[in-house]
């Protein structure tokens, strides 16, 4: 008996002796909310490759853009979590109820396309990371597809999610790498505080990709549903708002460190040709193991997002249709829900297996998201402006102006680049 008692009581004592700062950190981790999770979900395969590409191609020049994007992300995420807390409904349901059926259907088609693009980039991430371990993507991607489908439909998803999340924590090595890589502090600061943009097609396209990967439409849908799932009500919304704002800022700080670390390591060498180059940024931390460490983290992040993105698509579309949606249902009880999930997975994996450069494919998927983002943001903005939806919690005049400017700027940039791209084809 005493042998059993001792370790437990010893543990208790150890907990009591924890230093104050560690307790604070643990306390912070304990209130990890939907806001933080969803913003960090932005650092998926698409995100990491796009940020690394930005650092490699343009050095620190995109940093000011990231600051602007962070402001927009905070504004958008706050509206989404407010919509979730005050209406008790996800964005899919709100769009069906508040917009004419045609506009609602158009929004869902756009969401499906944007998320299918993301799923492609996640599977490309799986393939590329396994190739760093020496496994062909023609083996890795089909295996990942079967694995993800089985884990999700057979109901051990929550356990797998934790494993993927922990694997993705590897990317917290980026801030350390950014400091150890001796970036030019003056250049970093001046780029953070003042724009150093280039008027070139490549820069504009990358800017849209950065917007697409940071203010991803799927994150907004995911966040709103997560807030509803958590049972946040107007009374408890204040705490949720802190979580959402913190999450958006913290997620983007990690993104900014990815750009700084990559810029310090291989900045100005031109666009990324393969994913192995991106791993060079982790060399200050991991040395020769950088490539494997990067591949490990990328695999975790890709697998997580390759599951979450199709899931959030089928949640949103099932919600719009009003049919039962839940992972706790069996395949036969929720055929529509699992059907959309399966279609998106298969389409994503198939396109990711097409021959071509994985990095290019991933960036194109983010550009596609960048084009669709402002359209879906407009729906969110209209919903959050409506007093008939949010009552007194609807956007006030100042917030409304700020949010409108954010959406308009993102929209103008996307439209400009889209017109330029189409004109380039003609």
């Amino acid at each position: 008996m005493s042998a059993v008692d001792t370790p437990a009581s010893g543990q208790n004592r150890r907990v009591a002796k924890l230093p104050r700062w560690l307790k604070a950190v643990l306390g912070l981790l304990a209130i990890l909310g939907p806001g933080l999770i969803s913003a960090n979900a932005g650092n998926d395969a698409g995100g990491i490759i796009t940020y690394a590409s930005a650092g490699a191609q343009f050095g620190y020049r995109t940093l000011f853009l990231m600051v602007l994007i962070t402001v927009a992300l905070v504004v958008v995420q706050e509206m989404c979590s407010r919509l979730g807390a005050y209406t008790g409904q996800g964005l899919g349901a709100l769009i069906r109820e508040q917009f004419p059926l045609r506009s609602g259907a158009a929004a869902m088609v756009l969401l499906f396309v944007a998320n299918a693009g993301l799923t492609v980039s996640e599977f490309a991430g799986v393939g590329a990371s396994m190739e760093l371990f020496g496994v062909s993507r023609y083996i890795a991607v089909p295996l990942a597809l079967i694995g993800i489908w089985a884990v999700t439909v057979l109901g051990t998803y929550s356990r797998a999610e934790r494993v993927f999340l922990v694997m993705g924590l590897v990317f917290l090595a980026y801030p350390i790498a950014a400091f150890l890589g001796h970036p030019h502090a003056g250049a970093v600061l001046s780029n953070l505080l003042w724009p150093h943009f280039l008027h070139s097609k490549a820069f504009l396209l990358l800017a849209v990709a950065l917007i697409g990967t940071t203010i991803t439409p799927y994150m907004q849908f995911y966040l709103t549903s997560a807030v509803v799932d958590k049972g946040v009500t107007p009374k408890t919304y204040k705490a949720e708002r802190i979580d959402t704002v913190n999450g958006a800022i913290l997620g983007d700080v990690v993104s900014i460190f990815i750009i700084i670390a990559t810029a310090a390591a291989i900045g100005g060498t031109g666009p990324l040709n393969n994913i192995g180059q991106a791993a060079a940024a982790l060399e200050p931390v991991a040395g020769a193991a950088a490539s494997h460490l990067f591949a490990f983290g990328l695999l975790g992040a890709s697998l997580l997002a390759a599951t979450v993105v199709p899931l959030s698509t089928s949640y949103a579309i099932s919600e719009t249709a009003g049919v039962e949606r839940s992972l706790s249902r069996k395949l036969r009880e929720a055929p529509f829900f699992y059907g959309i999930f399966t279609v998106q997975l298969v389409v994503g994996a198939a396109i990711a297996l097409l021959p071509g450069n994985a990095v290019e494919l991933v960036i194109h998927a983010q550009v596609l998201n960048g084009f669709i983002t402002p359209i879906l943001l407009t729906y969110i903005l209209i919903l959050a402006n409506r007093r008939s939806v949010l009552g007194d919690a609807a956007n006030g005049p100042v917030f409304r102006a700020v949010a409108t400017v954010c959406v308009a700027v993102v929209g103008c940039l996307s439209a400009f680049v889209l017109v330029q791209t189409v004109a380039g084809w003609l």
Partner: protein
Amino acid sequence: MGFNRVTWSPGHERNPVESSRFRELARLRRQRETRARESTAAHALAGSLMSLAALLGSEVSDPDGRSVGRLRDVVVHWTTRGVYPRVKAIVLNSGKQDFVIGARWLEAAPPATVRLRSSRMYAGSVERHPADVVLAHDVLDRQLVDAGGVQIVRPADLYLARVRDGIELVGIEVGTRALLRRIGPKRLRTRLHPDRVIDWGSITAFVPAWDDGDPHRGRRSDLAGRAGAGLALDRTAGEVKRLKPSDIQAALGELQAKQGGDSA
């Protein structure tokens, strides 16, 4: 060895293979008959129902045929007594503003015509009364949940029918066809094909987006129009899945037969 003799005795007409094939044929024949019956029922229903989706946005004209505005919504009176709520008024948009016209000034005909009865009538301002349910806003596209709280589907269309001297809300269409009809071109919207229609009589109450833990909701309507409010049925999701056009036709036929008896 001899040869195979074909013998016949009662109770041993067919070998097992043949009888299963026969059963399959019989099943197919029954299926075809059911389909034909349901198609007839749907056709008959289409002739007597008005579709809310087709009515919305359609032009309302006065007795001389001049357009007075576009129909924006239909108001029914929520009731705990009758099975079907009666249409009380319509909300008309004249381009600049909305106003309400009482049902007594209106003439309606299937599938989607609303005309004013006289060129002089009383039009009120838009104001919500406690028992009012505004169909396009409060019911169309809202979440339907079954008796066990399972989310079934969202209404794709609402059907109105002439009953006695008024127009009543009789059913909720939940089929995919109705959804496609609304997404497709406007002029095809009047081509009704009732498919899976839930009898309005099985609606019990408006329910909030999240469960408020009130088991005795009764036929409550105070949540109508709130963001996230849905509708609860007294049936299960499985029953809704098996709905056929003939079900609502039977319910309507019964009602009309009873009326005939009343007036005689």
